[in-house]
């Protein structure tokens, strides 16, 4: 469960005020809004990379407002993916588990499981520099899932994909959400994508540049069709 209560974030010379929404455990939420409205800023605030001015952020009923990003245990896939250039694909999947000193048997099992799920087993020993867009996105997703996070934060994770890969990835994300029961916050510009993956769509709108942000959450078609 992720909840924002009256969160105000200052980012550069604009400000996002009184943001409140709630995403239940196991729920898949799409976040939509025009470019520059602050979707990425909100995601960064949720994972603790951006300090908020006021309000509270809850993860699973715990107030994590002042926690470090490391303690929040959220899987984050930023828009630019930000893979680690000096590491192989395997090292990406192992990274969070090494930090947690997971025993090597468990680690290997988890890497095998994830790489099979994401279809990146043949890439495990490659460096990330020459991966294609789709491969890189799956690695970033694998890295975010590797330590079994309580929620997944995705910033336009499918933007660089052709339509066939995109559909496959949408199904994959949906499966991950269903099988692992993690809450997902997924920023997208694509209505179809939002409808295909999400249970609920959180829309950010602002009529005038200086007016307060309006947030509306509505179940998507998919959300109606399936029990949450």
């Amino acid at each position, binding site marked *: 469960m992720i909840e924002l209560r009256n969160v105000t974030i200052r980012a550069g010379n604009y400000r996002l005020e009184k943001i409140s929404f709630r995403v239940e455990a196991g729920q898949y939420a799409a976040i939509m809004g025009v470019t520059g409205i602050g979707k990425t800023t909100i995601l960064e605030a949720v*994972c*603790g*990379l951006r300090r908020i001015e006021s309000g509270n952020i809850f993860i699973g009923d715990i107030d994590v407002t002042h926690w*470090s*990003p*490391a303690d*929040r*245990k*959220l*899987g*984050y896939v*930023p828009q*630019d993916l*930000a*893979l*680690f*250039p*000096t590491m192989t694909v395997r090292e990406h999947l192992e*990274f*969070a588990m090494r*930090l*947690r000193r997971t025993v090597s048997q468990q680690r290997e099992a988890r890497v095998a499981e994830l790489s099979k799920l994401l279809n990146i087993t043949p890439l495990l020993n490659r460096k990330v520099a020459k991966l294609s867009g789709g491969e890189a996105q799956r690695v970033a997703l694998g*890295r*975010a899932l*590797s*330590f079994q996070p309580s929620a997944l934060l995705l910033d336009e994770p499918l933007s660089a994909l052709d339509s066939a890969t995109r559909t496959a990835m949408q199904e994959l994300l949906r499966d991950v959400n269903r099988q692992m029961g993690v809450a997902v916050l997924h920023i997208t510009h694509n209505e179809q994508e939002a409808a295909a993956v999400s249970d609920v769509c959180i829309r950010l709108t602002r009529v005038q540049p200086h007016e307060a942000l309006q947030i509306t959450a509505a179940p998507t078609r998919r959300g109606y069709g399936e029990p949450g």
Partner: protein
Amino acid sequence: MAAPVDPLQPPTDAGKARPPKAGPTASVTPKRSSGASDAIFFIVMGGLSACFVLLILLLLAADLRFTTFADFQAALLKPEIQAAFRLTILTCTTAAILSLWVATPFGYLLSRYKFPGRWLIDTIVDIPMVLPPLVLGLSLLILFHLPFGDWKLESWLREDVGFPVTYRWPAVVLAQFSVSCAFAIRTMRVTFDQINPRAEDVARTLGCSRGQAFLQIALPQAWRGMLAAGTIAWARALGEFGPILVFAGSTRFKTEVLSTSVFLEFSVGQLDAAVAVSLLMVAMAVVVLLVLRGLGTGMAT
């Protein structure tokens, strides 16, 4: 020439009254220019650049022309020059390593964090680069010998710590370090500026502390920059002269480094030896520059 008609614009009244003729508006046939302007561009830009390259080449040629191989060999066989060579290598390397130890965290802080007074820190780092070298040496000397009540830094180091600095080799290293560290910090800052901080952000969401993100994500990407910074620091230390002369003196076999050798030989009228040592330093500088080029960082400036 008739004004070109924008096909995307809705037709105006004027357009209706006078429909565009097919003739002049459609004449956009490409015409090849003579290429004269390109030639002038390259002659002017290339000519000015060539002036500088020529100057440096002439300087080196003049040095080579002035001395003979026998002179060069004789100078290098002198025990005091050999001692100076050894001391130069040792002090430059020490200063470069110390610079790197300070410059890597410093460059990272400057690159990643905005903090109050950062502009001031940034400016202070530049001071050794713009300060006249003699002034820097004099300032070091004064700092070590300025009495604070009964207490003096140099006396304290000599009597209590047992490690006197002034007019000894540590003074050479400190004088070199004061300047070369500034250059190393600049290089490391540029290095970290070019590394995407998002990767460190993501590492922190995966469970890293800030320190772990620095050590495990940023540092492995920065090795090229660190080599470049170390090389630049080393090269700056090699060229250091003024502060060493003032703060460490130029005692033969004790604090004489190659740059002071040139001065010492020159001041006693041994021009041959001075030029021979100069050429040795040119050779060392060229090696360093080739190493830098080899790293392909392009951050030598």
